């Protein structure tokens, strides 16, 4: 099944280009470390999912590029073409001239309706190119105006036009100390709207990725390109083909569906966090050795202690004792999960037992631990890492950052600052209140796990 990617706004387009680049470079790489047959199967599966073979010499990404100003899309298209190994279709983008001005209301209420037809036509064309449509993957930031506002509108349109398809929104959360002053308003508006139309939100926080770049990748002068490449690597580690547990011998044919089924058992809980291990500069790879037990042990503790990466993990945090009363005596800082998915790639995957992730004390009481945890594996190594593991988690990972964003937005809302900028485009105070209510509900639900 194929996935159609919709890249929205500057962030969405910049990341999208890195993602397709990473996927392409991975399948072209010679570090698969597996049998030729396995490798070919992997390549074919990836190509079916993300690329279209058309008449062109290089694979064409199954993507629609949307932005309200022209510079980023123009750059994205040319950078892709310059790689020589893949490209975007020349007819799959839509842009305007004046941008959204970091104004969610402008993106949602003005640009959305105005350009709905043109954008959905492009999406329809891409969807029709797929033999079997596996769903939509949208990439956006929630801080600005286009990715956030127009992104929320487009997601709604996708839901209306494709009621039975899966929609996964990749949402980038901005740095806590401002990239955009009204980012918290835009975030609250985006998240609450997405909650109503999307199947799940897969989140990356700039602050977290920045730490990975600084401490693990050893990058001195970190650019957005560096941040985006780490994000692309992490996304690739989730979306490249794998064998699901009961899936027989071939690669999974319904990645988005499988993801939703394993991770989103209840509509109130849609926030997914992502962790990946190991992460290091490419130059260090030849000098490093990995063991599955070591990787899994670290990944498990990253889950329990809500650590962003494999350095600086708090090993003191422990799951609650099984005999203690659930939910009232949970130790502080312990990250309770609803469902987890671990993806292993590389040498000797099948030898690794993941029982430690099935420990009932990691989870809420309402799912069977066997149902709450799933593992996907492939012996084919990813992106030159001999062994790598990814964790997609529906847990309290994002509770604190979400609470912080809502708190700051509420603080600003109480003073009525900047509201005139939104009301002039049709988003009223009552609309804000509805969004706050939705998110306080989500926060409350996750808190009471």
């Amino acid at each position, binding site marked *: 099944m194929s996935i159609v990617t919709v890249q929205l706004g*500057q962030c969405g387009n*910049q990341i999208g280009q890195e993602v397709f680049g990473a996927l392409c470079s991975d399948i072209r790489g010679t570090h698969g470390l597996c049998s030729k047959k396995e490798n070919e199967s992997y390549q074919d599966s990836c190509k079916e999912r993300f690329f279209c073979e058309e008449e062109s010499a290089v694979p064409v990404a199954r993507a629609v590029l949307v932005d309200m*100003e*022209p*510079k*980023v899309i*123009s*750059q994205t298209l040319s950078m892709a073409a310059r790689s020589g190994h893949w490209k975007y279709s020349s007819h799959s983008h839509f842009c*305007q*001239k*004046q*941008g*959204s*001005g*970091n*104004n969610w209301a402008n993106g949602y209420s003005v640009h959305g309706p105005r350009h709905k037809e043109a954008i959905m036509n492009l999406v329809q064309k891409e969807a029709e190119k797929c033999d079997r449509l596996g769903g939509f993957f949208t990439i956006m930031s929630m801080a600005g*105006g286009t990715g956030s506002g127009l992104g929320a509108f487009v997601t709604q349109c996708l839901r209306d036009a494709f009621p039975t398809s899966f929609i996964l929104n990749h949402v980038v959360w901005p*740095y*806590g*100390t*401002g*990239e*955009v*002053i*009204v980012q918290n308003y835009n975030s609250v508006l985006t998240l609450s709207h997405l909650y109503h139309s999307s199947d799940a939100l897969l989140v990356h926080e700039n602050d977290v990725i*920045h730490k990975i*770049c*600084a401490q693990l990748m050893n*990058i*001195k*002068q*970190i*650019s*957005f*390109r560096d*941040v985006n490449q780490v994000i692309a690597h992490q996304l690739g580690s989730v979306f490249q083909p794998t064998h699901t547990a009961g899936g027989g011998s071939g690669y999974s044919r319904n990645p988005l569906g499988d993801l939703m089924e394993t991770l989103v058992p209840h509509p109130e809980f849609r926030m997914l966090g992502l962790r990946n291990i190991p992460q290091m500069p490419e130059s260090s790879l030849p000098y490093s050795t990995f063991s599955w037990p070591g990787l899994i042990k670290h990944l498990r503790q990253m889950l329990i202690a809500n650590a962003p990466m494999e350095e600086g993990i708090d090993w003191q945090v422990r799951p609650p004792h099984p005999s203690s009363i659930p939910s009232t005596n949970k130790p502080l800082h312990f990250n309770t999960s609803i469902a987890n998915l671990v993806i292993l790639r590389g040498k000797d995957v099948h030898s690794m037992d993941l029982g430690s992730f099935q420990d009932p004390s990691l989870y809420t009481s309402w799912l069977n631990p066997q149902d709450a945890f799933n593992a996907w594996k492939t012996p084919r190594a990813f992106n030159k890492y001999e062994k790598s593991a990814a964790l997609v988690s529906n847990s309290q990972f994002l509770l604190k950052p979400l609470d912080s964003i*809502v*708190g*700051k937005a*509420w*603080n*600003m809302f*109480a*003073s*009525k*600052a*900047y509201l*005139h*900028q939104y009301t002039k485009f049709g988003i009223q105070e009552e609309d804000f209140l509805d969004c*706050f*209510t939705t998110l*306080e*509900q989500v926060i*409350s639900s996750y808190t*009471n796990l």
Partner: protein
Amino acid sequence: AVSLPFAVGQCGNQVGCRFWDLALREHAAVNKKGIYDEALSSFFRNVDTRSGDNGPDIYKGKICSLKARALLIDMEEGVVNEILQGPLRDVFDSKQLITDVSGSGNNWAVGHKIYGCQYRENIVEKLRKTAEHCDCLQCFFIIHSMGGGTGSGLGTFVLNLLEEEFPEVYRFVTSVYPSGEDDVITSPYNSVLAMKELNEHADCVLPIENESLFEIVNKIHQMINSGKLGSTVKQNSLVTSSAGSAKTLQEKPFDAMNNIVANLLLNLTSSARFEGSLNMDLNEISMNLVPFPRLHYLVSSLTPLYTLADVNVPSRRLDQMFSDAFSRDHQLIQADPKHSLYLACALLVRGNVQVSDLRRNIERLKPSLHFVSWNQEGWKTGLCSVPPVGHSHSLLALANNTCVKPTFIELKDRFMKLYKKKAHLHHYLQIDGMEQSCFSEAVSSLSDLIEEYNELDATKGGPRIDPSRLKIAV
């Protein structure tokens, strides 16, 4: 997206002239192939002049003849004529000029009421023609001074006009405020009358004070003449230098100061014209820096003022650039933002600066700055890859900060000194449409604005009580 500058009056046109000169230099430095690109189109049309000046616009391909998208308005001919005889004569055509002969006599009422009325249709017509050539008009810039008659009076008339005719296009105003020692006696009247218009009709105002420009120019002269060992300055990097010329002696007296303002406008629009990893468009500036409609006065600072000729830029020097942006002597008005209250702050960086440099400096400087309680993390940031000519990197800081208040209070005081004695009032009241109420309303508008800043200042340093969050029934 196109930005359309209007230069009104003597000061406005002198600054405008420097602006076009430096804009051409900037684009020439970046655009090596001579192709008319998206960046150029935001300020220039590409006209096929082979069949004469009225040739059609060429939207792609090689540059034929660049014409500035601008309107030059002055009620005296001197300055505009000079521009048309100088090196920029081919950049403008007669359809963009509106001139008269006798000037406004330093009288706001003459500029606003008499010339406004007289030239209204002419201005609207030329405005529509200019706008027609624009693919997507995003913003108007008015460049003027507040203390005279034309820039101040006719300039604010044009501001009103723009709001009526193009309500959806943003209106940015760069206003040069008179100093205490201004030789125009009635400058306080003109300025306060103009202020009311700015309060009500501008989206964003960038106030500039001549004193600050003068101090910056002096600082640079001192630095050049100090003959410090090992510090040779790149001439074209001086924020005060004109395009192509290193002959500072031959420049006209205000040129150096006007170049600073021209550079401000270039930097302000750089991210809209050139690519970068985090674009910052003009509508974003208005969105993020104006929390309440009337509080739209932004204090600006530009760094570095010059670049030394050695190429190596250790990050320590980069960090110095950020520190300087917040120092008193880099602000373009007489103000000290560090000791007042920030409502919002924007940092637009150009050149080889990455997000980690931005973050490091924000973290470093944040503790010494006071932000309003509901906007503790009120930073808007932009990264543009293309540096200004002569620099490897530069920073423009825009602050919505209560430090503008003293400028307005002084203005009001100077106004009241004259008004109490009714000095020179008859020059204004004898103009059709002018009444005493114009004055009382104007000073009242200014007082209200000052009061809003006072109320904000009163919250500074006070206890911070976060409003309680919504409670959800479980």
